[in-house]
């Protein structure tokens, strides 16, 4: 996947917008989730206090990450968990593969882990001849279609039931044209059940890891993490190092925030705590950096590491709702993805911080109070300074800056601009002008405000009277 040519966000979004019905559906579905989030959040009297508390706990974690990681490792090892450290995606994938190889297992069942998406684990294991089945229904659907997830919580939200029906017909042999969601889910469940029963290795993500106990928590709505982990001989859990919370008592804050922010549920259906392997089972945890320590060192952007992956910023983002997750060409899409992705690779992801109107809704819904829209603004400055913008834009901006800094030039430019628009509208109303594609230009007034003011202001009137 990493070798694929990247289509810039605006181009992909333009394509997505060709199908108006689908865009409307995508927007309305996600808005529905956002509305559910509002309803659920507004029922909690101390919601804003909860957000503030969560943000402060994460501040503490990020400021003392080394100590908490060491504490977690020691406690996890004491519990009988084997702890691995991965500096980057490559190391992460190699560690997972080495565990598979040690047990000589060629099949794995996985429960939704965005980190493994970030590391492109599936592709890596496929090259090694290992078959991975994603057991989360949404992930399973996109996996069958050989697509990445388009949303971190609702991976197949870009698809309608008709699309799912077609996919299942092709891969699972379901009835063609049967769009009944229950029928389709049932079919997937049967297929997955067989997977769960035969896999010897299960991989899960980690929502929260508790330093003081060495345990970790996995949240799902389908129970698929439990099905995989409880039936397999080997459980591998992969986590970015920022997933830590200091104490068990802090889970109460995050579990209340997570599901409400994600889907409007009071809590995820399953919040499973894993502390030690059961008798005869092997439990591994892979703690991954992959750019996180670099982001931790970027003062303006370190807050992005507070993210608990609820997806609320995507659901509320008016741009995401109308461009679809795939247009962000990154494992994590939407506003949070747009501030995480440039850290991973500036040249690949330079377009993402610009895929926003800076409306600020993302910052307001964020359960851990990440200043997302301010970081988008700051990333723009960094990307421009580091030379990741088209030359034409830089030239235009430099010219604009000169014109706007000088009142005389500004007045001349304004006057001549208005003259052209009025008398030679074709100069402006043409295909080169992206404004004009689907919008009319403003009417040109007889005079600017300052021209009016010169004649009509109180001072000029009193001068006239003198």
């Amino acid at each position, binding site marked *: 996947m990493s070798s694929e040519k990247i289509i810039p966000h605006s181009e992909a979004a333009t394509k997505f917008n060709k199908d108006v019905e689908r865009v409307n559906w995508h927007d309305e579905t996600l808005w529905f989730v956002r509305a559910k989030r509002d309803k659920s959040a507004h029922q909690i009297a101390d919601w804003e206090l909860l957000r503030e508390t969560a943000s402060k706990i994460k501040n503490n974690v990020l400021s003392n990450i080394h100590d908490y990681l060491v504490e977690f490792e020691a406690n996890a090892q004491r519990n009988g968990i084997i702890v691995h450290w991965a500096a980057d995606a490559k190391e992460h994938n190699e560690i997972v593969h080495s565990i598979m190889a040690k047990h000589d297992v060629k099949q794995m069942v996985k429960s939704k882990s965005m980190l493994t998406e970030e590391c492109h684990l599936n592709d890596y294991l496929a090259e090694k001849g290992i078959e991975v089945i994603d057991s989360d229904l949404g992930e399973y659907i996109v996996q069958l279609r050989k697509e990445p997830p388009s949303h971190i919580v609702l991976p197949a939200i870009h698809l309608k039931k008709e699309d799912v029906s077609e996919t299942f017909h092709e891969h699972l042999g379901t009835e063609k044209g049967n769009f009944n969601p229950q029928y389709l889910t049932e079919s997937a469940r049967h297929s997955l059940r067989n997977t769960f029963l035969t896999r010897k290795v299960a991989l899960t993500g980690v929502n929260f890891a508790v330093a003081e106990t060495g345990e970790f928590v996995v949240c799902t709505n389908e129970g698929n993490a439990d099905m995989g982990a409880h039936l397999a001989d080997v459980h591998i859990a992969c986590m970015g190092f920022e997933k830590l919370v200091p104490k068990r008592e802090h889970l109460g804050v995050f579990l209340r925030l997570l599901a409400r922010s994600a889907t409007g549920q009071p809590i995820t259906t399953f919040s499973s705590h894993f502390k030690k392997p059961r008798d005869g089972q092997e439990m591994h945890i892979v703690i991954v950096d992959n750019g996180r320590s670099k982001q931790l060192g970027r003062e303006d952007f370190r807050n992005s590491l507070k993210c608990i992956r609820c997806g609320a910023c995507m659901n509320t983002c008016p741009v995401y709702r109308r461009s679809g997750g795939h247009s962000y060409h990154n494992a994590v899409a939407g506003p949070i993805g747009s501030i995480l992705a440039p850290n991973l690779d500036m040249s690949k992801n330079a377009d993402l911080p610009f895929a926003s109107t800076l409306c600020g809704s993302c910052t307001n819904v964020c359960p851990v109070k990440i200043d997302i829209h301010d970081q988008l603004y700051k990333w723009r400055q960094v990307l421009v300074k580091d030379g990741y913008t088209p030359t034409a834009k830089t030239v235009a901006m430099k010219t604009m800056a000169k014109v706007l800094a000088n009142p005389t030039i500004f007045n001349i430019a304004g006057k001549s601009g208005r003259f052209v628009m009025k008398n030679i509208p074709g100069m402006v109303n043409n295909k080169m002008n992206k404004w004009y594609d689907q919008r009319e230009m403003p009417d040109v007034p007889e005079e*600017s405000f300052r021209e009016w003011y010169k004649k009509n202001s109180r001072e000029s009137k009193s001068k006239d009277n003198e």
Partner: protein
Amino acid sequence: MKIGLFIPCYVDQFYPKVGIATYELLQKLGCDVEFPMGQTCCGQPMANSGYAHLTKGCDANFIANFSGFDYIVCPSGSCVLHVKDHLHDENQEDKAAAIRNTVYELTEFITDILKIDHIDGRFPYKVGMHVSCHGQRGLKLSQMSELNAPFFSKPEQLLHNIEGLDLVALTRKDECCGFGGTFCVTEEAVSVKMGQDRIKDHESHNVDYITGGDMSCLMHLEGILKRQKSRIKTIHIAEILNSLEN
């Protein structure tokens, strides 16, 4: 009280009537208003595009024009937010700071500084209020739908007292219109779709006018409305608040 009238560059050039309404309204409310003639632009178009380092000229010009006023008032939440957050000048930082602390959006200046909550006016139409994101979430002119906090709205409070004005409750009360500065051309497809959807919300409530505190949002919506040959018109809130003759 000496007020410096800050009229955004595009309002000066394309929407002088908004500048006139603001000027007249402030005078009616008893303010001593002056428009510094050398003003141009606050520099936001560059800064939001990632070129904040190119705004030094604009910043210096802004400071030269607006230093020494008791307050600076502007009929645009977006431009005010930019000045508040980003106006700096290493050679005269004290002056920049003074400006950052005294620049106000028109409706917040009326409610918070002049302490006026009732303006006489008449506007017998059905109106939808498009809340601008920078005004609302940036300057906190009204409560945001995402937060669990009591409702308030400085602009709506003023509109409620306008005779005959029927203010509708929109379905998505603070959804972004999609203008977003240079976003409106760099992400044209999404920008226009957002604008069209914003208009649909107003249409479904059968409004005659869409109003708001930011002419940039209204300019974008107006462009789409005109292309659609819609009967709905846009009007800046200053024009409604200034609807009664002296």
